[in-house]
């Protein structure tokens, strides 16, 4: 390739991995990181290089597999979203001490905003805690370059290196000239050294000392030193920025005429911050404004508090994305310019996301509300979080927590002597990821609740990645498969039945049976199995289409739009009744059972099941 092509940030990162000779790449999907692994699959095919690329059952497993490949001398990488790094933090903390052989990158994508996450946490803080260096790209093109630089640091200093893009890098597109692919032709060669790879606490103390020396050296490594973007500018104040905030700031300085009189530095390696750079800042400037997302990582390493403005001084907002309008205001205030009125950020709001028309989860939630109308509904991370629009989701904490929260509610109400129906929901991929250990715990403790596993045979929210049950790999290659029913029964659950949510009356009956079982005997599991309507791989498994319409019995009560919320059922303000939006309707036919007046009818009876 010798032409610039449009690359998504995640595609650019994957391109960097393939160009740099990464041999093993692992991940668990999560926005905004998901496309890194699928793009690596594409580049591997396009470039014809040997690589092992896989989705792992969760981020901890993904990190451990990739890390271990590096112990054999190969270059490897694990990618995930920031909350995935929480799951993988245990091996990361330890791997910082033991170090690496081949280069090892931990790519953790942060989500300031947040746009698609539970938290706005800053993975760079996790890098600080683990004591590993972290690189903070400001654009897709730069992210690609930092992959090779990260591998160099990792191999020179024998340390895991974190690459921390944010949503505005991962999901930005840029014209990029693909680089050459340099196969390293390394072979796995694990050199045994139990004192390192199986270190006991006594050795760990030595490894910790060694780690401190590595960090001190990395803080003096010239290639990742901060760059002065406008060397000609002179002044007693300076802006220090990293990530996308640095891109916004540079552009705003150019457009506002401050480019020639307000020095700006772009920090590439926020931790460890270069020691000489810190000294230079305090020697050269009276006041320093730090712009970074989302925590004060650079700022807290600038120790003279009287001269630094940022999050810790309340200058920069504590929460939310550093949108360019905010950066513009902060720079204007810092430079003593009048703040423009129109620099308010765009309004939020508008149409909220909802489960797709024909989504089987909608029927599941409707049935849960019928089977346990006064129940508590813990839920989990995935498309089905949108069940909160339907009143079918009361709590969402983190991956797998639906199961443990169901147990927590049970124990709390048991102590009070007030039994309550508890129906938890979890997606199939989430169940494999983190739902199994709490289910074992629930069996051991005899926690009485129903767990509905919403099994649409894919990881839908993040782009239809295969689950461990499907026997399909990241490149659609055949893999082993783990049967869900056997897994549930293997956890010791006494009630495990499979139902089809779109067969609403039968499915509601099955849930009532499960609720009754849970009252007497501990956890009951219902597997709600039906393909995702958006997953093209499963389109041949969808139930037959049924044509529905709303007849004159409709009195506009809006039960269907409020309790069922199908985007294909629309309230007509003029006619004060419901009509079917045929553009959106998938013909699942579930709404036939939803109208209290039976005003939703099938146009051509006998057209299908059930």
């Amino acid at each position, binding site marked *: 390739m010798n032409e610039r092509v449009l690359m998504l940030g995640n595609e650019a990162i994957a391109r960097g991995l393939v160009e740099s000779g990464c041999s093993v790449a692992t991940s668990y999907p999560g926005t905004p990181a998901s496309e890194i692994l699928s793009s690596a699959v594409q580049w591997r095919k396009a470039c014809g290089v040997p690589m092992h690329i896989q989705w792992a059952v969760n981020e901890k497993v993904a990190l451990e597999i990739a890390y271990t490949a590096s112990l054999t001398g190969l270059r490897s990488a694990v990618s995930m979203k920031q909350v995935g790094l929480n799951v993988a933090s245990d091996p990361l903390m330890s791997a910082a001490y033991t170090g690496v052989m081949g280069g090892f990158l931990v790519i953790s994508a942060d989500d300031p905003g947040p746009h698609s996450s539970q938290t706005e946490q800053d993975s760079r803080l996790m890098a600080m805690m683990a004591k590993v260096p972290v690189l903070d790209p400001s654009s897709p093109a730069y992210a690609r370059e930092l992959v090779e630089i990260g591998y160099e640091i990792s191999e020179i200093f024998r340390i895991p290196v974190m690459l921390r893009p944010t949503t505005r890098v991962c999901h930005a597109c840029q*014209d990029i000239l693909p680089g050459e692919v340099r196969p390293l032709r390394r072979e796995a060669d694990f050199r045994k050294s139990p004192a390192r790879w199986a270190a006991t606490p006594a050795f760990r103390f030595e490894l910790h000392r060694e780690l401190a020396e590595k960090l001190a050296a990395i803080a003096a490594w010239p290639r990742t030193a901060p760059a002065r973007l406008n060397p000609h500018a002179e002044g007693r104040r300076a802006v220090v920025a990293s990530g996308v905030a640095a891109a916004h700031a540079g552009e705003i300085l150019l457009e506002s005429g401050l480019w020639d009189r307000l020095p700006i530095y772009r920090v590439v390696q926020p931790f460890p911050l270069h020691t000489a750079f810190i000294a230079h800042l305090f020697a050269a400037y009276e006041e320093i404004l730090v712009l970074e997302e989302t925590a004060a990582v650079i700022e807290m390493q600038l120790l003279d508090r009287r001269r630094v403005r940022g999050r810790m001084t309340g200058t920069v907002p504590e929460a939310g994305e550093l949108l360019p309008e905010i950066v513009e205001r902060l720079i204007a205030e810092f430079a003593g310019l009048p703040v423009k009125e129109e620099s308010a950020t*765009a309004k939020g709001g508008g149409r909220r*996301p909802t489960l797709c028309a024909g989504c089987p989860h909608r029927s599941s939630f409707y049935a849960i509300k019928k089977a346990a109308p006064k129940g508590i509904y813990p839920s989990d991370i995935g498309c089905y979080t949108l069940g909160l629009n339907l009143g079918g989701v009361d709590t969402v904490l983190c991956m797998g927590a639906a199961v443990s929260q169901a147990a927590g509610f049970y124990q709390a109400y048991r102590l009070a002597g007030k039994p309550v129906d508890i129906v938890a929901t979890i997606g199939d991929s989430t169940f494999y990821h983190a739902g199994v250990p709490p289910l074992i715990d629930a069996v051991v403790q005899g926690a009485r609740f129903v767990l509905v596993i919403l099994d649409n045979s894919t990881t839908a929210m993040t782009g239809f990645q295969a689950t461990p049950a499907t026997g399909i790999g990241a490149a659609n290659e055949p893999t082993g498969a783990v049967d869900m029913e056997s897994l549930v029964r293997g956890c010791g659950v006494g009630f495990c039945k499979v139902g089809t949510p779109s067969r609403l009356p039968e499915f509601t009956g099955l849930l009532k049976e499960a609720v009754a079982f849970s009252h007497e005997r501990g956890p009951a599991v219902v597997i709600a199995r039906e393909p995702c309507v958006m997953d093209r791989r499963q389109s041949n498994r969808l139930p037959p289409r049924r044509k529905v319409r709303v007849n004159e019995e409709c009195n506009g009560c809006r039960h269907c739009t409020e309790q069922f919320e199908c985007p294909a059922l629309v309230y007509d303000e003029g006619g004060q009744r419901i009509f079917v939006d045929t*553009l959106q309707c998938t013909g699942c036919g579930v709404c036939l059972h939803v109208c209290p007046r039976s005003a939703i009818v099938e146009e051509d009876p006998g057209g299908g099941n059930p």
Partner: protein
Amino acid sequence: MSGQVRQQIVVSGVGGQGVLFVTRLLADAAIRRGGSVLTSETHGMAQRGGVVVSHLKAGDFAGPLVRTGQADGLIVLKEENLPLHREFIKPGGWIVLNTPRPGAAEGTGGVHAVDADGRAHESGNLQAANLILLGFALARLGAADRGGRLFCSPDDIEAALTQRMGDRESALRASIAALHLGILRGKR
């Protein structure tokens, strides 16, 4: 890259309408013109029918986001989003709007309107509203190198479509037909 048009455009719609596809075609067209381009997209939960907005900056820029009051133009696939995203437009900027009542919207505040959903319905290709609207925008605004207001031309977009969909002949034909339907509507 010298002399390249520097332009910022916001594309607004809801999940499933093809906002990202329109943005990427425009970005491809910017590269065909020999320039740099940056875009920012909405992924994840919002794509489930929620508000989706993408930013495109053709020319020499560093950051991927358009500031309020800085956009040269706004392409609106879902009319209800207009109040949310109108603030991106700079004074004198244009708005290309998909609306069932184009007559009522046309002309006020730089608005160029077409019933892209209606035309898509008529053509039997329900997914085509995004390309009809893009074709309409290309024809109505005109390419900058011919005195128009958009950095690229219909030919650039058609080439980008061909490059992206070249291996799927019937889908490509349908897409180009939709684009031309829009172009026809956009000509005055």
